[in-house]
């Protein structure tokens, strides 16, 4: 037995959705009042149901625009949902040679133009993984070694944030074809391209070749800026 917090009358409930039904009945019982909505919203919040809570808080504020608690909680939930949205980033697989490392006019290996901006952009908007022959065993140290000679500490700091992968022979072993991913690479194997086509995800390969087109990372950024959402 539970008492109504508003009028202290006795209320009986049982079953799995006990809490929700309890507060739903409160809402029915005290129609037009904002507090029961606020109370059900608190209950949703405790259980992580932010969207449902937000709907109740909106209703509570509609009924009483001066309800400070509802207003504070509404803001809190907006922030939480924003955070949550940021956590669900699309996946981006990155190659090293021909992508981050290109060639200059003297045909020497160099960090590709816009690499710094490209890495910052990717890390901010995607969940980034290495997909390079320099990282196959879940360790990034070999990748760092390959790039270190051409990059400053800021770039090294960025590339350290890219997650390692584990694979044996084909880069496509890493990719979950059903996931929301993009793959930036200069030249996948013909067989890997076949795998992409077979799984109807060929369009998720973004061809970048900074050996032939030094500014290609700038182009990749503009493609990815449409795809990040």
């Amino acid at each position, binding site marked *: 037995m539970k008492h109504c917090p508003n009028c202290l009358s006795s209320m009986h409930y049982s079953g799995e959705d006990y809490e929700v039904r309890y507060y739903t009945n409160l809402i029915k019982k005290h129609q037009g009042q904002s507090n029961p909505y606020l109370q059900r919203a608190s209950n949703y919040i405790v259980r992580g149901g932010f969207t449902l809570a937000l709907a109740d808080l909106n209703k509570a504020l509609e009924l009483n625009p001066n309800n400070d608690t509802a207003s504070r909680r509404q803001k809190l939930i907006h922030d939480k949902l924003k955070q949550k949205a940021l956590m669900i980033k699309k996946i981006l697989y990155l190659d*090293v*040679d*021909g992508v981050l*490392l290109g060639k200059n006019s003297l*045909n020497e*290996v160099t960090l590709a133009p816009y690499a710094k901006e490209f890495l910052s952009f990717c890390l901010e908007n995607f969940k980034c993984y290495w997909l*390079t*022959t*320099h*990282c*196959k*065993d879940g*360790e990034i140290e*070999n990748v760092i*070694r*390959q790039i270190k000679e051409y990059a400053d500490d800021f770039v090294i700091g960025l590339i350290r944030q890219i997650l390692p992968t584990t694979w*044996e*022979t*084909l880069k496509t072993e890493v990719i979950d074809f059903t996931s929301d991913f993009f793959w930036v690479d200069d*030249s996948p*194997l*013909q*067989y890997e391209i076949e795998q992409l086509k077979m799984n109807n995800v060929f369009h998720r390969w973004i061809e970048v070749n900074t050996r032939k087109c030094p500014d290609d990372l700038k182009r990749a950024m503009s493609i990815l800026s449409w795809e990040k959402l």
Partner: protein
Amino acid sequence: MKICFGENNQDKIELDFNKEKINFVLLIGGTRSGKSIFHNYLYKTLSQKYSANEIGFVFLDMTQHDFYNWDSQYLLKPVIQDPSEAIKTLNELAELKTDKKIFIHIEECDMVYKDRSGIEEAFKRLNKLSNIYIVYSTSRLDKGYLGDWLSQFINLRVVFSVASESDSDFLLGNNKASRFTFPGERILAFNDKQYYCQPFSDGAAKLLCDFSL
């Protein structure tokens, strides 16, 4: 047929293909580990040593960009880029009656995934011919088929920098190839022997980079 495969502390490391019974060379290592510069060096050396009447090359380039501009009297066929066409070519070469030494270069492993048994059948036929040499170059270490090929076909491994100790261990029985610092460092492994070779000098590497037959 004696070829210098590199140097270590100014000592030339020369290999006699006939004496060591080498007719199948594996070039393996990660991207930018020096494989391309090495095969350019190898084909440059061979073309300087032998005339087009004595030696011929066939390039099966699955990357579709490594040999795109190679076209000379040394080439028996235009560069082939399609895996099915490449396997057909291997079988045709097994039927070819010629005294010429023929080097068949296979770039990357797509043919294996297209038709492993087809390529292996062709290798078996080519293996019987003493004038045929195969150079198989890949950045992808597949322990499955390469494990079989190491015992069946490959007589010389040229191992460049690889990503992991386990890859190096698989190829050499030690972790040395996972510790290389510079592109072009390599270990030659054949007949229970291993030799370390230094990278080419920067100047030589630059010239080799631009080489084409």
